[in-house]
């Protein structure tokens, strides 16, 4: 279903035909006024055509030259990624190797320091035996053991209180 505007435009441009034209013209309240407006619209069209046509550009050769240059520049830009096509592939690989090596180095350094810090000191075998004795309530339920250690001098002092008896192994040594 055409709107009034569409029918009016088609009528002005003589695009309405047959039954549609008859129906539209019959629906016009003032056909003479409509015809006058139609003539006016045709005048406007002719006027615009006369006044607006023929606007030619100057420097046509330069227009072509400039356009060719832009097309060539665009082609160069488009082909640029192909020339450096290896880069996107190699770059992540190199970066991956670098990151891997760095991570390994950091891991080694950290491990070295941690291991140095955590290296077990030379402990007396008696300490183990006494500690074992302490946890056995049958031997010494109230014993307390304090340990003082100087790593630089490799000296360990064991302070034992409330020990009721020593294990036989310790006694023999």
């Amino acid at each position, binding site marked *: 279903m055409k709107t009034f505007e*569409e029918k*009016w*435009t088609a009528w*002005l441009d003589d695009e309405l035909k047959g039954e549609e034209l008859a129906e539209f013209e019959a629906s016009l309240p003032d056909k003479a006024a409509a015809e006058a407006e139609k003539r006016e619209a045709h005048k406007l069209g*002719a006027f615009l*055509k006369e006044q*607006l046509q023929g606007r*030619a*550009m100057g420097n046509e050769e330069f227009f072509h030259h*400039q356009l060719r240059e832009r097309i060539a520049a665009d082609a160069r830009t488009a082909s640029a990624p192909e020339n450096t096509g290896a880069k996107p592939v190699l770059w992540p690989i190199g970066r991956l190797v670098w990151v891997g090596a760095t991570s390994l180095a950091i891991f080694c350094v950290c491990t070295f320091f941690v291991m140095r810090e955590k290296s077990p000191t030379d402990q007396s075998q008696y300490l183990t035996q006494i500690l074992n004795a302490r946890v056995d309530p049958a031997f010494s339920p109230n014993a307390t053991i304090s340990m003082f250690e100087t790593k630089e001098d490799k000296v360990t002092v064991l302070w034992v209180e409330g020990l009721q008896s020593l294990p036989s192994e310790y006694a023999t040594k």
Partner: protein
Amino acid sequence: MHTEATPAQADVSELDLVKQCQAGDPEAFDQLVGRYRTRVFGMIYNMVHNEQDAWDLAQDSFLKAWKSIGRFRGQSSFYTWIYRIVTNVTIDWLRKKQVKGSGAEFDDAIQLKDIDPASRTVPKADALPHERMERREIRARIDEAIAQLSPEHRAVILMKETEDMQYHEIAEALGCSIGTVMSRLFYARKKLQNLLRDLYENV
């Protein structure tokens, strides 16, 4: 020297030229540009009313056409296809610039006529000074009136009245329905009739 081709010449080999362009031949595209540059430039100029802007937009339109010519399937004429690009580029530009006509920007139209001696826009030697002045005034009035239309209404009225395009061709170029084209024509004509009546009744 690039010259405009006659319609008959255009019909004969336009499709061949398009195929050559699609194969990457810039020379073929150069020929197509030669055929349409005047109409394209004139259309854009009538919409933007500035010679330099019209030049730049015509360049942008043809460059865009070159980039996308691979997608042209020949379902419409090349002429309609290029007009679709032209109107899209120009309407986008107008929307960005938000030109709402005061007519102040049209001064260059007069100056450039005097600057370029090789241009076809040079006034004829036999035109009298008062005739030239009258022509400029008329042109300025028309530009001012067109500037009061929205970009879409400008495109429709110019395609219809100066390019003699059919409703369906305009609809195709603008990517809208024929009904929309007719409706826009209705309002554009009404507006221009109100603004230019004294001119076209008396000139």
